[in-house]
């Protein structure tokens, strides 16, 4: 109903208590922030804290869970319930919390090593299950906390402390991996673009179920300027996806996308092809093939790097499905302990 006077509730929060009028500083804890000067984590924290009031959720119903890594220290800085757990396990811990407490807004903070290396299995399973958790992956393409080893997103041949001769591993494309793992919501943003980052956080909060957000994050100490190409003022390769809008990018939006052979998306001079052949972004398609093709535009050299919401397709969230099973089972009344333990094959001894 378009005439609705007050904005409708973000859809992933339907079971969460409502409270308006909070401000960014309500979510600032008294802990002193401890990252290196210039670390991209500062910007992401600030964007996150100033976004949280938009949830219109009481502070005590917001939970931030992280693994281990520089990025994973974030929960200490948010004044809500927080859990700085162990390396790679945040999605598992968050799954238990979210599945048993649909009245909470649960956020997972993780890094490229935490989420994709040791935590890869929990990540892909939480995505396929569509647990109602929002996963923010701070991708600096390096292990920061352990002082600079290559990560699963580091480019092949990367020279680091652990690979003085260059790494041999072909990296993951986090967006492709999430899509291959049946993720219902997949997005990407950049630490330095607060407006964009917050728009993605908003979309994630509005999505019922699990949301996966890769955030390009600069680590000035161990992997400085890893994302420089997409951070220049008018980065030619940066493609901003907007649902329902034609995909345009490059020098004053002169470029667009068309389908080449075998469904490969190809960048073209928009003017050079008929309007009808230019791709209009649709994040809601049930078939993830299109979102996957978009993710492959990013060949690693940042020649074409889409950011924004790749996919946002509805599927029943895990916690709701679980709650529904319990309700259905209890519709006929709750269980009776005495008759349970007695069972139906007893005898009397007198």
């Amino acid at each position, binding site marked *: 109903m378009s005439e609705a006077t007050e904005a409708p509730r973000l859809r992933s929060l339907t079971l969460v208590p409502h409270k308006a009028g909070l401000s960014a500083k309500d979510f600032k*804890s008294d*802990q002193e922030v401890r990252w290196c000067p210039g670390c991209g984590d500062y910007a992401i924290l600030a964007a996150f804290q100033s976004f949280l009031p938009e949830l219109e959720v*009481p*502070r*005590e*119903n917001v*939970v931030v*869970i992280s693994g*281990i890594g520089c990025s994973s220290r974030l*929960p*200490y800085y948010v*004044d*809500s*319930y*927080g*859990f*700085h*757990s*162990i390396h790679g*396990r945040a999605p*598992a*811990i*968050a*799954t*238990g*919390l*979210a*599945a*048993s*407490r649909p*009245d*909470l807004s649960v956020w997972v903070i993780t890094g490229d090593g935490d989420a994709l290396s040791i935590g890869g*299995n*929990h990540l892909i*399973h939480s995505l396929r299950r569509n647990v109602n958790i929002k996963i923010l992956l701070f991708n600096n393409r390096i292990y920061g906390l352990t002082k600079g080893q290559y990560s699963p997103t580091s480019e092949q041949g990367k020279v680091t402390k652990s690979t003085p001769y260059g790494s041999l591993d072909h990296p993951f494309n986090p967006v492709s991996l999430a899509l291959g793992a049946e993720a219902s919501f997949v997005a990407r943003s950049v630490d330095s673009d607060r407006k964009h980052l917050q728009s993605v956080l908003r979309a994630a909060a509005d999505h019922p179920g699990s949301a996966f957000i890769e955030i390009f994050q600069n680590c000035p100490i161990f992997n400085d300027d890893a994302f420089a190409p997409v951070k220049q003022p008018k980065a030619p390769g940066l493609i901003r996806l907007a649902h329902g809008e034609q995909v345009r990018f490059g020098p004053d939006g002169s470029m667009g996308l068309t389908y080449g052979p075998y469904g490969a998306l190809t960048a073209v001079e928009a003017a050079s092809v008929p309007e009808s052949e230019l791709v209009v972004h649709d994040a809601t398609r049930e078939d993830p093939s299109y979102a996957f093709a978009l993710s492959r535009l990013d060949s690693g050299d940042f020649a074409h790097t889409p950011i924004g919401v790749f996919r946002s397709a509805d599927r029943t969230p895990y916690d709701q499905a*679980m709650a529904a*099973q*319990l309700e*259905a*089972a*209890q519709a*006929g*009344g*709750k*269980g009776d*302990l*005495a008759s*349970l*333990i*007695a*069972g139906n*094959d*007893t*005898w*009397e*001894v*007198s």
Partner: protein
Amino acid sequence: MTKQVQELDHVIIRFAGDSGDGMQLTGDRFTQETAVFGNDLSTLPNFPAEIRAPAGTLPGVSSFQLHFADHDILTPGDAPDVLVAMNPAALKANLKDLPRGADLIVNTDEFTKRNLSKVGYDKNPLEDGSLEAYSLHPVPLTSLTVKALEDLDLTRKDAERAKNMFALGLLSWLYGRPSEGTLNFLEQKFGKKPEIYKANVTAFQAGWNYGETTEDFSVRYEVKPAPIAPGRYRNITGNTALSYGLIAAGQLAKLPLFLGSYPITPASDVLHELAKHKKFGVRTFQAEDEISAVGSALGASFGGSLAITTTSGPGMALKAETVGLAVSVELPLIVVDVQRAGPSTGMPTKTEQADLLMAIYGRNGESPVPVVAAASPSDCFYAAIEAARIAVTYRTPVILLSDGYLANGSEPWQIPEISSLPDLSTQFAFTTAPNPADNGDGFQPFRRDPVTLARPWAVPGTPGLEHRIGGIEKADGIGSISYDPDNHDLMVRTRQAKIDGIAASIPPLQVEDPDGDAKVLVLGWGSTYGSIGAAVRRVRRTGQSVAQAHLRHLNPFPSNLGEVLHRYDKVLVPEINLGQLALLLRGKFLVDVISFNRVRGLPFRAAELAEAIEEVISHE
């Protein structure tokens, strides 16, 4: 013709056949009838790790042993009085356990050349006189069954399938078991398939009548009901009792139950059982692995659930890091280890007690965790409630040890009154204690209850108690990250003191020494309770005195344990491992306890244990 009836005080029957022959079901039914009849009993199922090894082969043999008596008994028994062998493999695999003179009922139809050679019999043992030592009852079970069912329109395969019911009928007649229970059971099970239902009932009756009529069985046996405490009883396995105990604990603590688990033999049935009881608000989550299983449970605990994770040895090893996190953040968590034979994959369907030291020490750093063990199948119910009591009262992970023998073994259980169970909800002040909501200096997540040293369990959704926890060392009280050397020393000692302090809430160890003059104490833990008790009885029957005590709490120990140990000249510690409890007792109390260890994947034989005890006494 009427048959002579012989009275016996106890009988041990073993049903053995191919995995496909339904021996477990047959055993279960006979057990139910026996329970209902009022005998005391104890059972030991024994099946291969393979789902189904090739038919007729030794690895494919599945068996079920039942011990029942007119007095209370404690073990499934050492050697069967009666062996039912459905095929040559079953005969070969079980004969070595059979004492001379025992009854041996074999399904002759299966003793074909092919089946015999499958298990390396070149001659037919039924004919070559090699079984003379036993009272052999050759019964063409298959053909008799098929014959009995010829009027029903069934495939031969379906008809043959009913042969286990024929065997059950025969044995039920032989020992005068009631049959209503079985008939009802068959109705429930096959009600929807009338032909199959009829087939099973008919086969059962045919078996009964066969006993009645054939010459072969001249005597019928009678085992009088046992003098059991009056009350309502049921038969129950350890895994079921454990599951019910967890559900009960949730109700008693007024907390929602959450189970995060990954299937593994022999623990899977707890997951299966709890998954059934959504009526009790039980949430079960089959995780992608054991790490996620315990992680999800810890997350649910953070959210205020009574959280559980269940597994066996290999999975237990995988949970270590996360259990360590639970120790560090001091949240309640029940970690169930249904032990099996190790190391590594070991023998998944066989029992063992070799995870004790891993449970106590298997984490990095000083990481104390209370450990509780169940002593019998039905005791799993109470052990689970005790584990929950400790977890919620002290805000700590608790490891509950069961094992493969308890998990699948069963015994009659006097169903307790709910009112007789402890009220766990009063055991702890939820969320805010020891922080009165109004205390001036803000909420301190690591301020402790002066008595239990428990920290507050402040769950998300509670206004004013927002806080952060994690695995990094925390400042005493306020709980923020601290690398202060003295604070670390304090926290390490405080976590240890909290666990040690649990001893104050544990009843003193009871010693059973009827003669009162025993010089030797037999001290056990876990599933050996039954075999130790049986062995102790044997020894006492020979007029010798021996004391018995059994530990439910392995960490911390009951406060009087040291005193008890020093009271006796000798302490014998039987364990199905290489002496793990023994090491702890020696290390903590400097007592030169004597270990008795058999690591065979099976419960002790009362006989071998009695021998060991007498050995120790004789050296007095």
